[in-house]
Structures are given as C-alpha cells and as structure tokens.
C-alpha cells in the first residue's frame, strides 16, 4: 500500500494567513530535506505551529502552498506513511490507554496491532502502554505523540516542541532519537522556541519571526554570519580604546569588564590603530558568536521591530 514520494521533502512556499487583524503567516517559505534534522526556531507566536498545522492540512491559508513529497497533505492516501507528526498539546482521550490510542490510529491506516507494539517499544512506553492516558506525565504524553508519529514508518517527521515537558534524561534521549531518524534518511523538522534545545541536534536551521523566515541556513553558516567581522579587544584602558576606535569609524561596544567588541575594522587594522595610539591591550581576537546569540540577534528585530529580510541578515 505504501508509496514512497519521489522527493520525501516538505516544501512550504509563500504561506500567508490572517486571523482578524493579526498576520500569522507573512510569506513563510522553506524546504525540509531528507537526511537532515531541520530546526524550526522562532519566538512564541512567530508562526511555527500555524505553519505545521498548514502543512498537515489542518488549517487553511489565504495564499501559498505547502506540499509534502510534491502533494498537498489532504490528498495523501495513507498520510501517516508519508508524514508523521506531533503537535503541541495533542492529547489522547484521558480514559483511553496509550495502546488503544495508537490502535485506532493504526486502524485508520490499515495497520495492525503488532506495529503498535513496535512503536510503543521504540519510544520506551511499553510498561505504561495499557494505563489510561489521563494519568500520564507531560513527558509520557510526548513519547506517546512520538510513537504516533512513527506509526506509519514515514520518511517525513514533523515535531512541534517535542522537548516540552521532558526531563533531562528525556531530552538526551530525544536528541539521539532525532539524529537516528535523520541518519535513516528521513526528513525531520523539529520546532522549538529555544535554540539551546536544538543547536546540538539540528543540521539545518529555519529561523522565523513574525510569520516569515528570517534565516534559512546550515548551523555553521549561521554562526559565521552572526559573528560577522567582529573583533574583540581585551584592554585595561577600555574608554580610551573605545574612543579611539570609534573615531576611526568602527562600531564599538563594551562586551565585558575589560573587553571591547569592534565591528567595521579588521583585526590587523585594530592592532595598528591601538599601537599608533599607544593604548595597551593584552589580546585581539576574532569574535565567535554562539548560536544562541545568533538567534537572539536575528529574532530581536523580528519580534520587536520590523522583520529583517534574509538578505540583510546574511550580509
């Protein structure tokens, strides 16, 4: 029954959606590729969940398309064998056991109970599978949601905030799990509002703010772009150094008790200027941003002011 799409990818193009006066999606476009874990990052309200619901055919858009393997989700025959998904807060009926919840889902795809037992074991829920879901912790509900996403052995997996409610052990398990899914050649999209949750797991990042993509790049590229050509100077005479460097046309910021961050000048130029001005310094080095900083940098604009276009960011 299962027909593998020729391109197991998710292609989201130009999504626009308005709720009353709020613009939820404003030209959201990106692609989720096979074999990679794609982090879908943005502050709360940036449009991540809405985008996922649109991809899953749950919400309609005013404009744009969302295709999975080249097909709108609503046209898929056995959707769970193409796309597995976990949406935030999607809870089973409290009186139904995890196993029964997966069982009806399996039946809707023509799958049997043995497949249910497999995925239950895969997510480590075997001991609790026959208990009523009403008594589950948030972490257990997340594992149940993951099991549901795996049920159809899909090449594409969409997970909305899968780390929510997980304990540290669960988070480590989840990271390894996501990696293994990508290594099996699946396209994995994981949303989060915290960069720290995905930075060690994702290969690729789609950063969104105010309903549109503000950055779409590999993790290494993003860090490089966020670092810019900034130079850090460690000096005992910080005010003098700042005055001198800004006089030379650089943008200068105090970034520590004895550190100055300089952009607009190369490291060589900085050293020359400092030497010429006879300002003592102990170290000049290229500034390397963390992913968290890159994220904050990107989304601060998106959240507080107007959205920054991807071109501006990569410059």
């Amino acid at each position, binding site marked *: 029954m299962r*027909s593998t*799409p020729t391109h197991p990818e998710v292609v989201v193009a130009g999504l626009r959606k308005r709720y009353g006066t709020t613009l939820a999606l404003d030209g959201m476009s990106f692609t989720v590729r096979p074999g990679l874990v794609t982090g879908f990052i943005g502050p709360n309200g940036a449009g991540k969940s809405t985008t996922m*619901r649109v991809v*899953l*055919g*749950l*919400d*309609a858009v005013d404009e744009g398309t969302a295709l999975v393997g080249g*097909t709108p*989700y*609503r*046209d*898929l*025959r*056995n*959707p*769970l064998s193409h*796309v597995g*998904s976990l*949406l935030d*807060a*999607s*809870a*089973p*009926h*409290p*009186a*139904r*056991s995890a196993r*029964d*919840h997966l*069982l*009806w*889902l*399996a*039946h*809707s*795809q*023509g799958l049997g109970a043995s497949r249910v037992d497999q995925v239950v074991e895969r997510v480590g829920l075997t001991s609790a599978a026959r208990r009523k879901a009403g008594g589950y912790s948030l972490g257990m509900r997340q594992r149940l949601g993951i099991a*549901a996403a795996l049920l159809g052995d899909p090449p594409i997996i969409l997970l909305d905030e899968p780390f929510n409610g997980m304990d540290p052990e669960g988070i480590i398990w989840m990271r390894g799990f996501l990696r293994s899914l990508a290594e099996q050649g699946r396209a994995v999209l994981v949303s989060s509002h915290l960069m720290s949750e995905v930075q060690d797991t994702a290969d690729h990042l789609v950063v969104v703010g105010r309903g549109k993509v503000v950055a779409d790049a590999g993790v290494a590229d993003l860090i490089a772009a966020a670092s810019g050509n900034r130079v850090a100077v460690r000096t005992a005479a910080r005010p003098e150094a700042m005055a001198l460097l800004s006089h030379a046309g650089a943008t200068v910021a105090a970034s520590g008790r004895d550190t100055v961050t300089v952009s607009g000048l190369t490291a060589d130029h900085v050293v020359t200027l400092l030497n010429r001005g006879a300002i003592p310094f102990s170290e000049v080095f290229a500034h390397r941003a963390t992913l968290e900083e890159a994220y904050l940098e990107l989304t601060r604009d998106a959240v507080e002011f107007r959205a920054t276009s991807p071109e501006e960011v990569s410059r």
Partner: protein
Amino acid sequence: MTPRGWDGFPRLLHAEWTKFRTVRGWTLGVVTAALMVVLVAVLAGVSSDQRDRPVVPIGPDGGPVTDSFYFVHRPLTRDGSITVSVSALTSSIPTSPGNLRRDTVPWAKAGLIIKDGTRQGSPYAAIMVTGGHGVRMQDDYVNDTADPSGESPRWLRLDRSGNAVTGSTSTDGTRWNTVGTVHVEGLGSTVQGGLFVASPPSVQGMGTDVTVSTADFEDLDTRSGWHGRDWTGDQVGPESAGFAGYPVGTSGSVTESDGRFTVTGAGDIAPAVRYSLPTGGTLKDILTGTFAALIAVIVIGALFITTEYRGRLIHVTLAASPRRGRVLLAKAVVLGSVTAAAGVVGATIALPLGERLARANGVYIFPATTSTQLRIVLGTAALLATASILALAVGAVVRRSAGAVTAVVVALVLPHLLIANPFTPSGLSDWLARVTPAAAFSVQQTLVRYDQVSSVYTPYNGYYPLAPWAGYAVLAGYAVLGLAVAVVVLRRRDA
C-alpha cells in the same frame, strides 16, 4: 497517491470503532441506554394493577371493541329478513348533572342489527341512521360503508342468507336500494336480531361527555326464521371497559304502543379507541424508557466529537485521515450502528417482557401485528441512532458538549413533555408532533384512528398526526441537515 473512491473508508470505520470501544464510559453508556429501555418497561409492567377492572371486549379480528348499546331483539334461525322505518333520532348531552341539552351527536346510531348473540365482541352486521353521517352499513366493528344513494331514507332492511347479510334502504318502503352485502364470519345458525340505539360520548374540547339518544321505530316487519312474538330489551355490555355509561338520571329503555317502538340507548358498537379505554396501554407506553435511553445516547453522540476538540485530538485524527467529511461520516456510521444495536436489544427484550408483566396485572395492551412490533423495534433503534447522530452533528458544529446535548435533548424531549401537558393547546401539540424532531416518536405508535369513531385523537393519547416512518423522517431530516452543515463547517474551519 491521489485519493480515489472510497476504498479507505472501511479503515476509517475500523479506526472510529476502535476509538469508540476503548473508552469504557461510552460502552457503558450504550449498555445503560438498552438497560433503561428494559427497566422502564418492567416498571411500567409492574406498577399498575387493573385485575379488578372490567374485561375489554375483543372483536372478531382480535382488536378491542366497544360493544355497549341498547338492543331490542328476538332470535333468528338461519335465513330471514327484518324491515323498519326510523322516524326520529334525537340526542342529548348533559350540561350539568341531571340537566340535558338537545344536541347533535354525529355518530349516534339507530337501526337494525343481526348479531351472534348478546356476548360482547361477537360478530354482527347492522344498518343504521346516524346523527350526522347519514345512513351507514357496518359490520364486525371496524367496517363502515356509507349509503351510496345519498338520499335521506327512512326505511332500513337487513336480509340474512347464511353468512351473507345484505343491507338496503328505501324512501317509501317499496323501492329498495342495496347499500352492501357483507359476509360475517362466525354467525351461528341461531342469532339475535332486532332494533338498536347507541350514543357514543361526544368530544368536548380535550375531553368527552357521555350522551344519550332516543329513536322512534315504526312498521317493524320480520320475514321467515324469526322465533316467538315478544321483543326483549337489553343493555348489551353494561359493565364494559369501554362503556362510559348513561348521563345521570337516564337509562336504556324500550316502549311500544301501536306498533311504534321508542328506544333509548347509550354507548357504541365500534372499535375501541385509547380515550374510551383509559385503562388500556400501548406498546409505546411500555417503551417509555426510550426517553432515558435517548438522553444517554445523545450525551455519547456529543462526546464522540467534542472530546476530540477538548484535547485537540482532532489534530491527530485529521492528520491521520485528512478527508474530514468522511471522518465525520465514519463517526456517524459507528455511532449509529452501536446505538441502533442498543435500541434493538433493549426494545426486543422490553416489549415482550413489559407486555407480559402488564397483562399479568390485568392491563389491556392494544394489540399489534408482528410486522408492527418489528417496526416498533426497528423504529426505536432508528430513533436512538438518529438522535445520537444529530447530537454528533451539532457537537461538530458548536464544539461544545453542553450545548450539543441540551439542543438535542430539548428538541426531542421537551416537545413530548409539552404534548403530554394537559395545559398545552391541541393545535400546538399537533404542530409540535409534526415539525419538531419529537415527531419521530410516531414510529412507536400502534393505535389506529377510525373515521367512524369520534374521539380525542391527540399525540398525548398515542395518535400522532404523521404516519410512523414519516414522523421518523422528520428527525432523519434534521440529522441529515445537521451532518451536512457539520461537514461544510468542518471542511471550512481550521481544525
């Protein structure tokens, strides 16, 4: 890849069925629904004791009859004929105890009758003038033929030849028109024949008043087969279940002078109706537990969809099966099947059980043929299933279980309560029984309306204005409309 046809639908049904059966409360609710039908039937059966009440006379076809009238008779062996002219028929209705007012009683009857003895419910054939419906020929309680001549004759004749009885009328006693020939099964070789007067209760608003009628007969003539010379006057069935008696201060009588018989009588010779048999019960009464079952299946129907919204389970459901109309349809099929099964089981147990218990307590239950009983069982099942599906549809639209439950319960049960309320104007209760979903309770009715019996034919008494399945169709219409709206809304709306 692209969807073709409906070949995925069985899977959807399987999934929804698994969903349904794995919530224990819902399974329990359905079992409770069936149980309520049975329990109320038992309650109805054991709660009334009418063993000391008069026995209900049964007609030749097995149906209950009213067989109480004033009979002036002589025996007739084998063939013979009887002729008479009726010169006056007057009726009176009491205004207060002891005071009578002259009035028309449309189905007051005076004429000739040949009857297999004075036993109540025995076969007969009769020809008569009536208070407002001209000359009629009637036999065996349920059959009624109008005089086709359309004139207003004074002369009546009955001819018996074996089992065949022919009724004729004449305006002058010489030229005769045949009204009809009926074959009365079960007439013995010696029967009783003669004059009779009956005067059924008159419908006054939502109730009835007893009446009394008096007729003058002249030119009584009998040919061959008649025994003796003296006419005997008798009240047939004075202590009968369907006989309301005489107005205070009157009684049945016959007087003769110069070949002129003046006969006074009350009662009726006709099929019994619910109002004239207040002690009688119907199969619908036995199935009153349907109301309790309805509330249970309505709650389940609403929950079957609203719980999906509560936990946003609907996201999972629709991600697994993106074709939303079919998801709702699969839910409706599963829900309908389960609740219909509860209805079939409940009604199949409740009907014979309640009937037996009621009969053991002396309650007369209006009879129903096997096919009618089958219709009641299937109709009850359909009623429960459709109500539940309506709740599902409303729940899908409003996404609130309290609202969905209330809307459907109020639409089904409140009209019934208003119908049953003696304060409700009859126009309103008829209207309610036609246009509200409560019209569907007509699938449980067993009573038949007779044109030749004036009575209070209200839904409250078990006479619905719509035919059984037509009444059900009203509810089904609401459910189909509800589902259509729900499908449109579900498709248009973000999940």
